[in-house]
């Protein structure tokens, strides 16, 4: 199938008159099918850096000797979380009910949890902010979740570096 598509693509390249939308689609499919799917790297290559990256934001990058990027990620995630706390944001507890409630509370909890050591320390030290009205509290809640989501991006980056998909 791949060979046939490749041959069709070559033929179309030689005769531009055949470049109809259908031919373009065939060409696109041939180009797409040529890309082999990257195999999953062994677990021991990436798990330590991703796990450390979760626990300490930027830690995965430190483990992989990307110190400047690790420092930037650590500062960005830590300051986002710290501002969230100083704005008295709310930490989500997983709660189920209707679909929207489940998505917001479980998603928010996972977002909070992704901050790693910052979330764990905050809970262990007894931070419990009730949900009150006000734009500053609202921003604080969003900052706390965003810190976790930024750390997820950092963990994905650490995975790609550990898997040698990027430098």
């Amino acid at each position, binding site marked *: 199938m791949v060979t046939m598509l490749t041959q069709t693509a070559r033929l179309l390249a030689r005769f531009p008159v055949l470049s109809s939308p259908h031919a373009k689609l065939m060409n696109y499919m041939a180009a797409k099918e040529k890309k082999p799917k990257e195999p999953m790297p062994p677990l021991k290559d990436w798990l330590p850096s991703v796990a450390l990256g979760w626990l300490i934001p930027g830690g995965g990058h430190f483990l992989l000797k990307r110190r400047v990027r690790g420092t*930037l990620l650590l500062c960005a*995630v830590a300051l986002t979380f710290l*501002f969230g706390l*100083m*704005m008295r944001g709310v930490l989500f507890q997983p709660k189920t009910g209707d679909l929207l409630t489940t998505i917001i509370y479980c998603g928010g909890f996972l977002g909070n949890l992704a901050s790693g050591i910052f979330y764990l320390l905050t809970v262990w030290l007894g931070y419990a902010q009730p949900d009150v009205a006000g*734009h*500053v509290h609202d*921003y604080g809640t969003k900052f706390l979740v*965003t810190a976790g989501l930024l750390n997820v991006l950092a963990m994905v*980056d650490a995975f790609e570096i550990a898997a040698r998909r990027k430098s």
Partner: protein
Amino acid sequence: MPKVNLSHFEAALLFAFFTSIVLGVVTKKTDRERLMYGLKSFGYFLLALLSIGWLMRLGHG
């Protein structure tokens, strides 16, 4: 823990700043590309912030 009281604009600006740093660091391949992407991302955040802010103000009348 001290409490901070930020305006909408200040809070959104801080959000844009930290998010742009992370987006710049994780997205591109060279340091120059990372810096440019971070600045561009921050600029887009700012643009969206001001545009939507004005839109809401004008919408309210």
